[in-house]
């Protein structure tokens, strides 16, 4: 989230400069943010030390555990395993979601045939089927892959379809007026016009993919960051348990930031239009 605000600040500043505003208008938001981070960490450190290490940990203890887990190679192994599941599952979900979304958004019959199913599945908290998936696929890689896939595909699919449906009819008219074929209209108008929606779907899909990955790893509990959390949770090593949790947080932040950057890059007009 921090990254979004920074981008917005930057946009506002260029606007001001263009209008002849001075740099003095720049507010020290970053300073406030830095102070807030330091204060919260300090508070956590102080309060955390008062509580039994069984129930809670604190930054310095977590840092020590992180060093240990990194040195032993355990964290890195779990991280790689998780990344493998996440990246592959998410990639497959994105490809399938975009393709299906394009079809559903463009062809009313495909939409009519599938919308009830899509809506039903999207509304179901699909992590609920994890035990079933484990029954189907066993405790291995494919079960985790499937759960990541099934959780991430719907936001991508639904947003892509609504992107295709929301292409302004004026722009389709331009294609028609210039005697473009259906294929050319699809490639030169509909696809680029719905790209920003796809990116939004992809960004929302990432969050769900990470949730799916962790839940699947809880269940299979063989490897990955989720398994690491279960392991140290069961051993009551709370500080060590926090390390993979923070790792997951970092993954979410980084992935989302990349997705947001990509959204801006893909559709720069969308972020200046409404100012």
């Amino acid at each position: 989230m921090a990254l979004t605000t920074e981008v917005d600040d930057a946009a506002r500043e260029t606007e001001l400069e263009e209008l002849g505003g001075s740099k003095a208008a720049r507010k020290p938001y970053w300073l406030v943010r830095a102070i807030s981070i330091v204060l919260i960490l300090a508070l956590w450190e102080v309060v955390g030390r008062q509580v039994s290490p069984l129930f809670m940990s604190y930054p310095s203890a977590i840092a020590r555990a992180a060093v240990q887990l990194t040195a032993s190679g355990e964290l890195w192994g779990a991280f790689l395993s998780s990344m493998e599941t996440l990246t592959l599952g998410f990639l497959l979900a994105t490809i399938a979601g975009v393709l299906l979304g394009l079809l559903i958004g463009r062809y009313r019959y495909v939409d009519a045939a599938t919308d009830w199913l899509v809506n039903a599945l999207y509304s179901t908290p699909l992590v609920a089927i994890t035990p079933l998936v484990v029954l189907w696929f066993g405790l291995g890689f494919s079960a985790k892959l499937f759960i990541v896939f099934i959780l991430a595909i719907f936001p991508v699919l639904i947003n892509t379809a609504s992107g295709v449906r929301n292409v302004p009819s004026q722009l389709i008219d331009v294609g028609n007026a210039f005697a473009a074929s259906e294929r050319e209209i699809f490639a030169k108008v509909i696809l680029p016009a719905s790209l920003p929606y796809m990116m939004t779907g992809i960004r929302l899909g990432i969050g769900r993919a990470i949730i799916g990955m962790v839940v699947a790893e809880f269940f299979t509990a063989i490897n990955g960051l989720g398994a690491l959390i279960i392991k140290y949770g069961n051993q009551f090593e709370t500080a060590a348990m926090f390390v993979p949790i923070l790792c997951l947080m970092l993954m979410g932040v980084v992935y989302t930031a990349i997705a947001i950057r990509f959204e801006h890059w893909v559709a720069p007009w969308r972020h200046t239009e409404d100012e």
Partner: protein
Amino acid sequence: MKQIDVATTASVPNRAGEAPRLSVSNVCKAFRIRKGASQPAALLQVLKSISFEVYNNEIVSLIGESGCGKTTLLRIIQGLIHHDSGTLLVEGQPVTGPGRDRGFVFQQPSLLPWRTAQENVEFGLELQRMSATDRAARARKLLQLVGLGDAAEQFPHQLSGGMQQRVGLARALAIEPALLLMDEPFSALDAQTREVLQKELLRIQAETHKTIVFVTHDLDEALYLSDRIIVLGARPGGVKEIIEVPFGSNRPELPLLRGDPRFQALRSRIWELISNRPTL
């Protein structure tokens, strides 16, 4: 953009013997409309037996009240809507659908927001499968023609409304259409920008010798720009009268033209035609 200079004949009203660029005869159009979901469809007769011709190098305006069917007629000429009956010929060929022998400038600029000004102008050329270098060269030339030589790399959201309309005009001109169709292209602009663009359009027409059908509901605009004005009546829209505009090809700017007694006479004549209900 090689074309025979026929500017000298522009003000000659008698075009007998010359083949028209556009020939519209007895075109009718009705829309099927439903007031409510349960009600049966009713027919809304929008255009009734429209006939007129447009000759080489002319600017012809279609004028009429809002809702009288101007956009519908223009879209029929472009081939975006089918007409119910009658004939439409562009350079002698019947209109069966959209074609790149006609260029269209929309009421809203309708630029593709992910393309730069230049890439927008290249849109029709891409569809014609022109090579990238030729496309770029042509687009640059046209942007220069519409006064946007410096804005080629700008995206639509970085351009003002007037500049966007200029890009729209360049995009339509790029495919070198036999006929340029413009649907109230300046109506969404502020008065000052509108006057500038009206003047620019006359300059561009003088340079390119395009044949233009221009839809407007603005009397002054029609009188300033046109060689002829086709006045459409209210629903169903039929041709009420076709008015020859006598100011020639080297007309003074609009504020000066307004002082011309002929301008005032024609203006009140058209105003009467538009505002009077048909006496049946």
